[in-house]
């Protein structure tokens, strides 16, 4: 949480409507996302109750487990879900693969990758658990299941693990995607309620965000997005219906009616959330996509391609727990990925960069002097090294020698030559013009605000000649931002190979072979 975002929330609270905290969309939204709304039975580790799933907002498919404690019916549900999910994933696997561009790993990559959207982080948890409880199953022998079930398990586990990577969009939680772009006027905890959050972002006509969110909290009028169901629904409606479906002393017709009533009741709990998720998709699509989004989606496509290959080659299911090396490597990777993701969003979006301007890792302001033709004659060859001065009000914290980059000229490095305070009442530069931005105009108004003058030596992004390509060097009066953030790919930390796991971490892990015990593990 930064001061900017906090301020946005305060503004939202006052104005009665959510405020943007981004000017672009930083998550990929597929043309055909697979929306999945799961419901689980209370009290169990992972007992699927129902799901609404599909790629077309007008035609959701409803899956229901009439006896959620019945093991066979659970696997039947998994098989039916597998049919839908695997068909969706399969469509992307068969699409032609393209060769990756130069500069990245060699090999082919699928043209596009599937995307699954669930309402909230708990939905991701459901997928992770469902993946765990199905990926070790076998289609032969005792306790055999439909062959599609273990495959579903492996894919779901893949999606769930991938969702932990910062910047990955293969599996999205609608609440998280929305909260990344809008600040509501309620607390982050309350933002986990999809209906309430959408109430703030897109309130119905005539209602404030607060009122809309309040209405969304009535579980009778607005069923929870799941996977947990409302306890009064469980006690008053679900339990009697499940009991009715389980009776053996009634006619087929009566039992059929009970099943149909149960399906209607569950559909009633799912349909409003289904609509809300598609509403979220629509809102996100309306935002312009951020520049570096494509790079991250490429990484997702790589991961998808790689896992599809692993499965095609008959690879084993993901083990229960990471080996020591894998765990450390994963942690290290996650830290770097988080930093890279944050930097990318800042470079793509001035409103996100503004956060860093408050902490001193970035600054912005007008260029006050510029020497576009300056040459550096110190070395063997003469090099074009223009120097500019930028004046800023931001609380800058950079040292001479630091390398900065500007979002508007990503290929160009700016090295800090000097940083000095500038007396606030110094006259504007000789070329002072009226087209300066509001913050410039404020120079005169707030005479007491401290200013800093930064001199920067520029290199790169100007062409090969000793005269810069027009436009590649900032001119006086131009408003610019510079930052220490980079999104350059960091090398992995150095880790021993699996076989060389030191004894302090348990020695080399055995090759993971799924066992019989895994296949017949109870799912009760």
């Amino acid at each position, binding site marked *: 949480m930064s001061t900017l975002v906090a301020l946005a929330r305060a503004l939202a609270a006052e104005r009665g409507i959510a405020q943007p905290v981004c000017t672009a969309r930083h998550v990929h939204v597929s043309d055909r996302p697979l929306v999945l709304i799961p419901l689980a039975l209370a009290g169990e580790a992972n007992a699927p109750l129902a799901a609404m799933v599909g790629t077309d907002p007008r035609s959701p498919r409803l899956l229901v487990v009439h006896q959620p404690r019945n093991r066979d019916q659970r696997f039947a549900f998994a098989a039916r879900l597998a049919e839908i999910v695997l068909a969706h994933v399969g469509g992307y696997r068969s699409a032609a693969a393209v060769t990756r561009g130069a500069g990245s790993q060699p090999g082919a990559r699928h043209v596009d990758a599937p995307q699954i959207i669930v309402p909230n982080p708990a939905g991701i948890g459901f997928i992770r658990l469902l993946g765990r409880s199905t990926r070790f199953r076998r289609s032969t022998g005792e306790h055999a299941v439909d062959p599609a079930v273990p495959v579903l398990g492996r894919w779901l586990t893949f999606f769930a693990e991938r969702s932990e990577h910062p910047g990955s969009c293969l599996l999205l939680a609608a609440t998280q995607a929305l909260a990344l772009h809008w600040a509501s006027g309620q607390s982050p905890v309350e933002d986990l309620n999809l209906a309430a959050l959408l109430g703030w972002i897109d309130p119905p006509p005539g209602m404030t965000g607060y009122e809309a969110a309040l209405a969304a909290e009535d*579980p*009778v009028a607005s069923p929870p997005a799941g996977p947990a169901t409302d306890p009064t629904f469980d006690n008053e409606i679900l339990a009697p219906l499940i009991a009715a479906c389980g009776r053996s*002393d*009634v*006619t087929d*017709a*009566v039992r059929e*009616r009970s099943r149909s009533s149960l399906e209607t009741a569950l559909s009633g709990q799912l349909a409003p959330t289904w609509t809300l998720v598609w509403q979220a998709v629509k809102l996100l699509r309306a935002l312009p996509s951020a520049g570096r989004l494509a790079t991250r989606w490429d990484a997702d496509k790589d991961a998808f391609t790689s896992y599809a290959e692993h499965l095609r080659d008959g690879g084993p299911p993901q083990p229960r727990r990471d080996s020591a090396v894998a765990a450390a490597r994963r942690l290290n990777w996650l830290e770097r990925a988080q930093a890279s993701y944050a930097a990318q969003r800042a470079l793509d979006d001035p409103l996100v960069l503004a956060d860093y301007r408050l902490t001193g890792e970035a600054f912005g302001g007008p260029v006050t002097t510029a020497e576009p033709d300056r040459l550096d004659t110190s070395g063997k060859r003469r090099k074009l090294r223009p120097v500019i001065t930028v004046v800023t009000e931001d609380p800058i914290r950079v040292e001479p020698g630091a390398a900065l980059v500007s979002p508007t000229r990503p290929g160009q490095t700016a090295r800090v030559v000097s940083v000095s305070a500038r007396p606030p009442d110094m006259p504007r530069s000789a070329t002072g013009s009226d087209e300066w931005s509001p913050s410039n105009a404020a120079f005169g108004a707030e005479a007491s605000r401290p200013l800093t003058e930064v001199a920067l030596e520029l290199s790169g992004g100007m062409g090969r000649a000793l005269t810069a390509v027009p436009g590649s060097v900032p001119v006086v009066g131009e408003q610019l931002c510079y930052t220490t953030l980079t999104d350059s790919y960091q090398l992995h930390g150095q880790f021993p190979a699996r076989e060389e796991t030191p004894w302090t971490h348990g020695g080399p892990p055995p090759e993971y072979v799924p066992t019989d015990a895994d296949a017949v593990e109870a799912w009760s």
Partner: protein
Amino acid sequence: MDKLRGDVRHAMIGGDRVRAKELRAELRDAEHRWDEALAELADKSQSAADSDAQAPATPVAALRLAPRARVLLPVREQVHQALTLLGAPAAPRLIVAVHEAFYAGRLVSSRLTSLRRDEERSFRAAPYARPYYLCAALTADLLSPARGLLAVSTWPMDRRIIGPLSPRVDYLTAAIAVAEQLQRSGDPEPAARRLLWRFAANIPRAASSMRSMSPHEVATAARAELAVHKEADSAHRTAAARRARTQLDDAAQLFGSGLALSRPADTSA
């Protein structure tokens, strides 16, 4: 009806159980009438379809029993069978599991909940009229009915007493009984092996996996632990049985003393 359902839920959210109860009753009423109306409609359309199709009429509302519910014995007989096999007081769940493992016919656990009470009533109405009664096991200290346990009246008193070590002793006794029965039957049901495994998993050195489990080894391991507790347990039970026979009347000896005794057992025994 939907509105009623919503109202019931709102009432529960507000903590107003009284109103919720009223609304629930209204809802049940409405649902019942709705179901009846639907059933009538189904009958009508069925008979219309029948007369159209001229197919032999199937009575729609005929109750269909579950296919395998050809009950061979009354519930009390089934329970008696299971308890006799076990040879020790047992909880309904275990009785049902034993029955499923070794005997034909189905025993539904819900039929057992009122069994003890019904047997007591029957005994008090006509004492000893029946060859046996399904009765309670008594706690050693207060001679009150131990919760959730059934025993057979023809067993000696001390087998129907529960001292502090008795739950474990009876568990091991039951394990031995199940193991021996498994050895005896030529073609055991999978349920029987599963039942034995549930015991074996909780007895030291009884078996390392369900697959490798051998009834003989389970019985041996159970007997080994049983030997550790047997003497102390028997001492408790014998002493308590003596007190029961002197202090309680016939009915109380079978079904327990309902009131706390004024002279609780000497706990240093």
